[in-house]
């Protein structure tokens, strides 16, 4: 059995590398350290790498995951060290573990946690109070344009699992969010922040917001703990 799950970070300028380019980065890294990946079958075989929820361009992450299959069993400590030796600054491998579940992990992801840093968010107590009011609503509706162009109304309240607001230093507000992330339901933290700003009459300035994904979790009935 040589199926594995790998946890990595994507920080600094690496935030600007897209999902597809990240996949290419890993394929080349495996090739550089001479670890052969199992290829998909079919007309145009390519190495099998599967990522969990794609990370939006510009978001950093300290809890990204990648699932892969190698042709030969690997010593995981050695593999981790070799990969870290060939990664650009900003990407580091935190852990690797074998995976033997029947279903791909990407299909079992249920939620993700985020740390959203907002600059100049105004009075902290008022912010917290607004947030309580915002979350106390029975439903939070927002309009969303579908791929077909049709506009649908969506209730995002059930997608918000937990919110915790802190102020580590003057003029910096941090929202620790746990939102659904998976094949059935995914909420982008920026959508949450925008809805909150609309609700509380605040201006949303994307340049003053920083998003970091901190962890991903599997289905609650399986485990309410980080993947690794």
């Amino acid at each position, binding site marked *: 059995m040589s199926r594995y799950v790998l946890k990595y970070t994507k920080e600094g300028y690496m935030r600007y590398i*897209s999902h597809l*380019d990240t996949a290419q980065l890993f*394929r*080349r890294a495996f*090739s550089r350290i001479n670890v052969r990946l199992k290829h998909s079958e079919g007309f145009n075989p390519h190495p099998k790498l599967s990522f969990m929820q794609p990370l939006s361009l510009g978001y950093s992450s300290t809890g990204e995951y990648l699932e892969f299959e190698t042709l030969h069993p690997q010593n995981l400590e050695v593999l981790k060290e070799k990969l870290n030796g060939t990664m*650009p600054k*900003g990407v580091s491998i935190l852990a690797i573990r074998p995976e033997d579940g029947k279903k791909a992990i990407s299909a079992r992801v249920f939620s993700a946690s985020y740390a959203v840093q907002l600059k100049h968010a105004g009075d902290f107590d008022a912010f917290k109070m607004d947030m309580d009011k915002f979350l106390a609503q029975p439903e939070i509706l927002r309009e969303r344009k579908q791929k077909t162009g049709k506009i649908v109304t969506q209730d995002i309240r059930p997608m918000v699992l937990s919110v915790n607001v802190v102020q580590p230093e003057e003029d910096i507000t941090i929202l620790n969010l746990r939102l659904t992330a998976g094949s059935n339901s995914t909420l982008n933290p920026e959508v949450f922040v925008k809805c909150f700003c609309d609700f509380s009459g605040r201006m949303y300035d994307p*340049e003053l917001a920083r998003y970091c994904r901190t962890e991903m979790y599997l289905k609650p009935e399986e485990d309410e703990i980080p993947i690794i």
Partner: protein
Amino acid sequence: MNVNETLDSLLMRVEKPARYIGGELHTVVKDPESVATRFAFAFPDMYEIGMSYLGLQIIYHVLNQQEDVACERVFAPATDMEAEMRRVGLPLFTLENKTPLKEMDIVGFTLQYEMSYTNILNMLDLAQIPMLAKDRGEDDPLIGAGGPCACNPEPLADFIDFFMLGDGEESLPELCRIHKEWKAQGGTKEEFLKKIAKLEGVYVPSFYEPQYDESGAIIGMKKLWDEAPDTIKKRVVSDMDTVEAPVHDIVPLISVVHDRAVVEIFRGCTRGCRFCQAGMIYRPIRERSPERIKEIAKSQLADTGYDEMSILSLSSSDYSQIEPLVTDLMCLCRERDAALSLPSLRLDSFSFKVMEEIQGVRKTGLTVAPEAGTQRLRDVINKNITDENIYGAMKQAIELGWTSVKLYFMIGLPTETFEDLDGIADIAANIIELARVHNGGKRGRFNVTVSVSNFVPKPHTLFQWCAQNTREEFEEKHRYLREKIKKVKGATLTYHATDTSHLEAVFARGDRRTGAVMKRAVELGCRFDGWREYFQYDLWMKAFEDTGIKAEDYAFHAGQIGDYLPWDMMDYGVTKKFLISEWNKAQEASTTWDCRHGCTGCGVKRLTECKWEGCLK
């Protein structure tokens, strides 16, 4: 805010922000305090183009190997990024240390094609460095340029402090050593330029002044400093095995035009096609040994992790040991699950065998470049490919199951007539007929694309004395061909924009006066002229009007053999005498043999040894 913070605040506002972040694997970030020379390698086009260019990897590697030199990269920001940078006042910076260009010691531009010249001026402006050399002070960096278009540096002469002709692997480190000494002594810029003007291959335009007669024709160059050399000889790397070659290529983090490892197998070309500037200015042919090629290929694949590899030369099939080399490279690639791609391979039985092996069932496009429609015109341009060659290869391709063929032609070649255009349509029709016969009377899915480009006369070729076709002539030829090709079922025609070809002709053969148009065009907003979506011909026309310079004087000018040419001082090995004799032969449609069958006397032997001369005799 420092560059990093400002940059970070802009990146989410632009497309493909990774163009501006650096940090790729194998980039070299040196401590600026630890080196004597900070060199910015400037590529005047977008990141994705520049990072696909082998020359960048070579120079980056060669310079960073020098302990006292730090080479960093800079590319032309796309128009969205440029607007953001100008909005917040962020000056153009290098990717490695995010250093503003104006703080570098030397900025070296690579001149790959004329249509990137406006980007050079715009990059200087974006770096807050005066465009004109005479407006720059002692604190501004030295601005250099090299690459194939340095063979006629005059259009850029007012903007660039020094040009480097020929191969840069040896001359650039030499130049940096001189820079280090000069810096230690604390001299003026002029003193530095005087020192490097004596280095072989270096042209300092401020030491020369073009002379014109009453009609405005250029008649010579006046030296403003007695010790400046009379001619500038291009530099030639004579041994491709001992010269430095990049092994730890920078691996881009985003996809670029050519996402693959590249190994150069030889430099130069012996075919002698008369329209081809590269064939003239890169003489003599210098092969790299198969052992060294394989060594480079192996370490490149291992160090980059690319899943594709390609060989580079002007005409790969001419490599003396191409068959065993390709066989070995295929083997090497297979071991690493990598694909081998073989551009510029002639279609003979060997290349079909190879393609069968590397492409398997997938038969993508096949390309052939007859360049001209009749044997007569092919003889004029010395493109030694016959009808039998073309149809023989096509028959083989059809039998092997290819269903899509692309043919490359040039129009507007000297002596061209409408018969030659008929020939283009005939070749397309005949190939389709071959497919029909093979498929039992049905064309099926088989199709031919006829791709036509506009001929641009280039310096250092014998056609340097020829006029380019006018817009009307090109348009009539396009119309004529369209009608002809329309009648050929299964054939489609594509052709290039005439406006761009005209500007290319102006700056390819331009003199120092054309620089004013370029500067004006940049002021009016021209940049990325090689990109159809950014090219603004009306602004260019206004630039010509504003400066009083006539494009037609340059593009449509047919010179006399005895005329002084703006690039006459630049010695690329091939002599004027040789070009004249080739010109005379071209008029009679008489061909010249490949010099591997015996020296043709081009003159390059004056500069360096020619090892492969007569090797096929």
